């Protein structure tokens, strides 16, 4: 298309679209919104979003959270010295040992898989990669067909 034809088309479409009047919102929309506002207003303050809480309640929650944080930090700092916490710490230590053991098993598994892969023929690996790629392409293809057929604008 020639540039002047494009400009002419742009002007025509621009004029046609800009001349469109506003669409009428459905009658029930106002009542729907007002009903939602009434429901929200009827909820007690503690069920509304935190930003809507009264200022004293907001400051109190902030203070409580800061105290909890300080308490956790203090406990972490002082816990090793407290005798009453020794059984708990011992229990935590055993859990850490378990995690260490699991990590070692995982490392051994990864090592063996890596070893197997290194010893496999390049063609086998290329075939596996091709199969994965094929599966991916099939998924995209099926998705495209679904999009075109099921979600097509009628």
């Amino acid at each position: 298309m020639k540039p002047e034809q494009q400009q002419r088309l742009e002007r025509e479409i621009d004029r046609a679209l800009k001349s469109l009047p506003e669409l009428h919102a459905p009658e029930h929309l106002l009542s729907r919104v007002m009903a939602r506002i009434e429901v929200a207003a009827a909820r007690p303050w503690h069920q509304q979003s935190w930003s809507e809480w009264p200022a004293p309640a907001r400051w109190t929650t902030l203070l409580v959270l800061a105290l909890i944080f300080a308490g956790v930090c203090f406990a972490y700092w002082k816990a090793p010295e407290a005798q009453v916490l020794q059984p708990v710490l011992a229990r935590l230590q055993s859990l850490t040992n378990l995690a260490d053991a699991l990590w070692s098993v995982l490392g051994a598994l990864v090592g063996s898989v890596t070893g197997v892969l290194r010893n496999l023929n390049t063609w086998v690996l290329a075939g596996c990669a091709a199969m994965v790629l094929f599966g991916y392409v099939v998924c995209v293809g099926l998705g495209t067909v679904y999009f075109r057929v099921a979600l097509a604008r009628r």
Partner: protein
Amino acid sequence: MTVAQAFEPFMKNYQNMVFSTAMRLVANQAEAEDITQEVFLKAYERFDQLGASPTAGGWLKTVATNMSLNHLSRYRARWSFFSELTRPGHDEGDDEREIEFADTHDFGEEMARADRHQLVEQALQKLPDAQRVPLVLYHLEGLSYEEIAAKLRVSLGKVKTDIFRGREALRKRLATKLDGETCPTGKS
């Protein structure tokens, strides 16, 4: 007068504008209603600032546009990807064919005779998302190509192509409809 009571005339004043913005972008009545509702619930949260503000209309339009685009990207996330797969000659028409501007001239004259607004509205809503959205943002929201590309997170070239195809498709749809109106049996 409570805040809710003061909000009612505010919403009546702007609801058509917000609904039109959403409807032309998402082209679906139920989705446009939901978006309009969410826009006004957001507006209610900051009604103390918006109520008397001269920029309330602009704020509402921007929020409606952004929420519509978010809605399209969330619920029709793949539209920009799949829009590349549209069949040539299906909706857009054959791009290589020379457009005969005698038709466009007639199209302008015939438009005056037909119920132009309804036809344009219907034709616009039948365009695929990938063409309608940039077309509406360009012609109705007044955004530049660059702004549209940034908003839709697509390339500048794609925006220009989609807008061009959208205009073409719109022109063809309107020409076909007007042919049908003026000559119900088919070709004149």
